[in-house]
């Protein structure tokens, strides 16, 4: 049983309503303006109780294969679920995965990621930003939130973006601020920043140069071999981390 429930004087099967009622009742005597320390303790118990409720699996649910993987993963490392030719490949999961599944169901994530890459090569930063902003599907907040983390891992294994394009992409997906997602993704984000190409490209030239456009179109045709390669690398990296993490 959670310490938080004990703190609120609640039984282990307390539901959200009960947690809120207990919190509200205790607030009458522990007010934020008169008892800051007591209030902080009470509020922390309240938040922890709600979080505990969120994490508690619903009675009917069986533990998924992904939660088994999470035991093996070193803490602090993030995770993606990748779909490759219809076969789901499990990487260490991220907490919100189950909730986000619906939002992502009708959206071709891989196609979108490759298009991002393609557009980042073809468009100057301003036009690229507008292109992202005008994507109607991404007005959906759950979808956009669900894409942020997989996108980082995707970009991580692709040829580097320019600094401007990277900054625009990260800002658009809310990855330019400190939060639990970016704290978890510190390592890949750090590498993305380090490998980002220097700016100063002449965009007119890029857009009119047939070789450049040709090359970026080629991305689409070569999806499978490329993906196979980076997937292998991901898995190897993941393994290396597990063993590396275990030995130190």
């Amino acid at each position, binding site marked *: 049983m959670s310490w938080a429930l004990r703190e609120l004087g609640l039984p282990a099967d307390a539901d959200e309503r009960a947690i809120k*009622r207990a919190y509200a009742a205790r607030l*009458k005597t522990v007010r934020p303006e008169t008892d800051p320390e007591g209030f*902080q303790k009470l509020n922390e118990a309240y938040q922890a109780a709600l979080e505990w409720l969120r994490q508690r699996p619903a009675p009917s649910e069986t533990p998924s294969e992904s939660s088994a993987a999470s035991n093996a993963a070193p803490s602090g490392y993030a995770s993606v679920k990748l779909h490759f030719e219809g076969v789901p490949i499990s990487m260490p999961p991220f907490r919100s995965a189950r909730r986000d599944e619906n939002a992502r169901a009708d959206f071709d994530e891989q196609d979108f990621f490759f298009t991002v890459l393609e557009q980042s090569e073809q468009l100057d930063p301003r036009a690229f930003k507008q292109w992202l902003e005008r994507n109607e599907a991404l007005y*959906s*907040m759950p979808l*956009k939130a669900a894409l942020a983390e997989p996108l980082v891992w995707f970009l991580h294994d692709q040829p580097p973006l320019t600094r401007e394009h990277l900054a625009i992409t990260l800002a658009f997906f*809310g990855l330019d*601020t*400190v939060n639990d997602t970016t704290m978890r993704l510190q390592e890949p984000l750090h590498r993305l920043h380090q490998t980002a190409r220097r700016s100063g490209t002449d965009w007119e030239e890029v857009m009119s140069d047939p070789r450049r456009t040709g090359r970026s179109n080629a991305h689409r045709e070569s999806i499978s071999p490329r993906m196979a390669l980076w997937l292998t690398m991901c898995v190897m990296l993941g393994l290396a981390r597990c063993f590396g993490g275990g030995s130190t």
Partner: protein
Amino acid sequence: MIVGIDLGTTHSLIGAYSEQGSTLFRNALGDHLTPSVVSVDGDTVLVGQAARDRLISHPHHTVASFKRWMGTARETRLGDRSFRPEELSALVLRSLLGDAEAALGEKIEEAVISVPAYFSDAQRKATRTAGELAGVRVERLINEPTAAALAYGLQTREEESRFVVFDLGGGTFDVSILECFDNVFEVHASAGDNFLGGEDFLDVLVEAFCRDRSLRRQALSPQEYGQLRRRLELLKRDIGGAATAPMQIAIDGREHAWEIDEERFARLCEPLMQRMRSPIERAMRDAKLQPAQLNEIVLVGGASRMPLVARLVSRMFGRLPLRHVNPDQAIALGASVAAGLKSRDAKLEEIILTDVCPYTLGTQIARRDHNGQVHTGYFHPIILRNSTVPVSREDQFYPMNEQQQKLVIDIYQGENPLVVNNIKLGEISMDLDKRRGTDQNGVTVRFTYDINGLLQVEVTEHATQRRHELLLEQNPGLMTPEEIRARLAALAALKVHPRDQQENIAVLARAERLYEEHLHERERLQEWIMQFRAVVDTQDAALIVRNREQFVEALDALESLTLNPQA
């Protein structure tokens, strides 16, 4: 008596809580909304509608939108004196307090003032100083969306509900996610943009007009520029639906007709609309909520009336926002409730409000990567944004290497993972005893953020248990107590028109604005102005009232003719 005040970028309101609930007070002209505009006429100060008219007739002596400069040391020259943003705000507050005192018949000692949720520490302190300069105690500031939610929540009093409040005012944009249950008002998250509001949408129109009519904005005289903004502000309210909104204005002796439809306006405003997306997304992410878990979407702030805003909301949330809240009054009504809470009004005794800290607060750290290379400049959060306040958190830090002679704890506020992109609030440094080695040279850093948004930092050395308290740097945007005293004396020397003369002043100011705006009516207007001045000088109250009514009628007729030339 404690009052609640909405000190807005374009308008301000004042109210109080009584047994009947929140009541707003009317100004001398009978309006709830007092324009946040200040004008100086010799050694006399005008505030409100009369001052707003003088933006056009006396642009060098008049100023508006100064809330945007709160927290900076910017001085505005009006006539032969200059004012800090705190002083200009104090003049508005003084005028509001006068209205409330006239209505209540008693002296007001204390006020709760609403501020944008995303206001920084410096901006909050400046708002308090403004209160002090206006002669009231301001112990409590309330976040604007929280105030609006308080007014809205009390109005509906549902068992349990979660809602999002969008506040798009004249100069600031805020979004807050709240929940109320069992008389608890809990703010889950707030985010915003301190430089995004109705004024920016107006700027877009000004720019488009000038481009279309091949005018250079800088080449317009202050009078013409003031007129143009006023006309376009009126036009802005007409934009919507299928029809195009027309307007007409005389600039430099030439008539300019112009029109704009909603589609074009939406296209021009797209960059502004895009800026609203990330605060909304951030607040929702921090609140750990999905759009489907919200019961209501409430829009407040005058600029939220633009159809564009409702459209953005429905695109992002998949449904339409609620409409039955008065967007101009919600914040002031809520601030009045907060005033009632502060005075522990018996009816409100059981309500408890909890709010959050809108920014992340933390320190700078260096990191060693897997190659052993040290990277500096990383932001390490200690109090995460949207933590419920009051809150106190600590963390431990150690020197990077044995040779280090000093340990510096920098205090930053911001959201970026790199400190260069955040705001530095101060630093504390201490000498290290090299004999001890890195493990023993650690420190515990504690950040305490109180209910009024004050941050206290305390560093404890592990080895000696010696404590260091952080003295935040004197912010260049803030006034010292001596300065406040000096400015208070200077403000006291300024004269204000007595309340019973406000209506006369306002009608004269309006006539002077119309004089500027109407080249062909100048002779007539000048004559009316002279006549009415003479009537005012007789001090015959009945005569003045009669004449003023006629004067207003004549001005109304003249103005309606020019606003709708076809009619």
